[in-house]
């Protein structure tokens, strides 16, 4: 009851505060653009134009073409969407910690763990709602306009949402420590790049310094923090059945499992830190 009270309140807050309404607006606009921008050529049913650019080719077949378009769309925009989401909800933890607000919350019969988790999970759920709306929308546009109801695309929502949920564990730690929305956004933003850098460390960060300790440190960081980049790559990969080009990796659940572990670790750290604080 108490937990759900706070959870519900946070979801409501994400919606009422305008951030999510704004996102619903952006999502709707994007969906409309997509709905008008995508057409199947009336003369050649195997030719699809997206925003004036023609895509086609007998080799791919009809399903293959739609799948390819969905994959490209997903792959190109998912990082950006995640970033928008972070902008919207990274303030929720620092806001809760503000003088006058936290006093009231802590005086209620909730443990600090309940308070923190209901808040973080509420924020995650708020973004989840928004993401779901967007995914359903894109899925429906493709179904209605092109006649392909691509279930694998819809299912990739679950993976993206999971990636976001893990990412939010990092946002929670940073929000707790800095108690500032600005810093939280900044550091979360950097984390997107760090995660990308760590994922490709063999081809980049390793080469900066040929030192085994440094390399193992990078490995440790990679496994201790949510593997955001790897999760997002894999969430796009579920859309296509066969590899687009030779050497393209198959879908793997590993980064999701590892990230679940690190999200649990991040939350354990947050709860420990939060429980010790004075307000």
């Amino acid at each position, binding site marked *: *009851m*108490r937990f*759900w*009270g*706070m959870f*519900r*309140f946070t979801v409501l*807050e994400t919606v*009422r*505060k305008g951030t999510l309404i704004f996102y619903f607006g952006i999502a709707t606009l994007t969906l409309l653009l997509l709905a008008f921008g995508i057409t199947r050529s009336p003369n050649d049913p195997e030719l699809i134009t997206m925003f004036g650019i023609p895509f086609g080719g007998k080799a791919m077949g009809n399903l293959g073409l739609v799948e390819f378009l969905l994959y490209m769309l997903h792959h190109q925009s998912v990082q950006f969407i995640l970033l928008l989401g972070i902008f919207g909800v990274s303030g929720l933890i620092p806001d809760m910690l*503000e*003088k*006058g*607000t*936290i*006093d*009231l*919350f*802590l*005086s*209620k*019969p*909730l*443990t600090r763990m309940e308070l923190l988790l209901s808040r973080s999970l509420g924020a995650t759920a708020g973004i989840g709602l928004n993401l779901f709306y967007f995914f359903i929308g894109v899925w429906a546009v493709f179904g209605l306009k092109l006649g392909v109801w691509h279930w694998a695309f819809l299912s990739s929502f679950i993976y993206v949402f999971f990636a976001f949920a893990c990412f939010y564990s990092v946002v929670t730690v940073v929000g707790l420590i800095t108690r500032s929305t600005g810093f939280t956004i900044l550091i979360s933003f950097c984390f997107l790049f760090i995660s990308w850098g760590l994922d490709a460390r063999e081809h980049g960060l390793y080469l900066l310094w040929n030192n085994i300790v440094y390399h193992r440190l990078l490995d440790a960081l990679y496994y201790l923090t949510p593997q955001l980049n790897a999760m997002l790559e894999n969430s796009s990969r579920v859309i296509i059945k066969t590899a687009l080009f030779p050497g393209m990796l198959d879908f793997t659940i590993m980064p999701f499992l590892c990230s679940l572990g690190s999200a649990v670790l991040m939350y354990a750290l947050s709860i420990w830190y939060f429980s*010790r604080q*004075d*307000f």
Partner: protein
Amino acid sequence: MYTMNALQTENLSKQYRSGAFKKYNIPALDKVSLEVGEGEIFGLLGPNGAGKTTFIKIMLSIVHATSGKAEIFGQSIKIRSVRELCGYLPENHRYPQFLHGLDTLLFFGRLNGLSESELRPRAQTLLETVGLVQWAKVKTKKYSKGMLQRLGLAQALMNNPKLLFLDEPTDGVDPVGRKEIRDLLIGLKSQGTTIFLNSHLLSEVELISDRVAILNKGKVIRTGTVAEITSQKLSYTIQLSSHLPLALEERFKSSLPAFSYTDNRLDISLNDKTDLNPVIDALRTAGIGIDGMTQQKASLEDYFIKLVQGENNK
């Protein structure tokens, strides 16, 4: 008969740590031992920075004590369910700006663990009690300071607490509102609610508190009923018909707890009523006439100011 205290602390101390690497120690409470009986209205007084807010925050686990023991109705304050018995009006309180007054109460009621069926009637009753019925559906960002204070009070009462902590409850409230809040508190007391009050407004504390404690620089320097504290010292003003000789002035200064002399006006404090006669005798023996004399029962405020200044000069 054994009665349980609503609140009890033993040697409760708090040092805040601040600065980079927590290297500065700010002492806020120093071995505070207090007992508040069930059904009492207890006032905690003290100058700014004395540690009053810190004390309440420790009781509600908003701040963790450095050392010492604290119990609410016989249970350690570390237990979560202790807070089910408590209501709290913080000195700074902010409410979610996107909610209106009624929703705010419902939300805090939910955090208190109230069931959905209890919530609404309770919130409605409280809005009436604090006089915010017409404002129930107005967003709290449009509330004035006094209205927020009333909302805060209603919020603190949502779970029908057995122990109510109020930090400056009448701050920003107009005189009529203050009277209403006082009456409300007296009404709560008659239903058996224990009230723990922090305030600067000593005249108000004096009106409703059964007992008070005075806190200065984190230490309790006095506890007792208002009557006990204010009647400890009796003050008199004596108007003299002629100048007071220096010898007599010196004698009074060394023998009386408080003494001042200006323009043939003598202000003295005594520990006991019977000490007045020797003073008058001494004046008469020196041949000084007395034009008038008034007894001044020290108000809590006078006493408080003297006490705190005295402590700070030590």
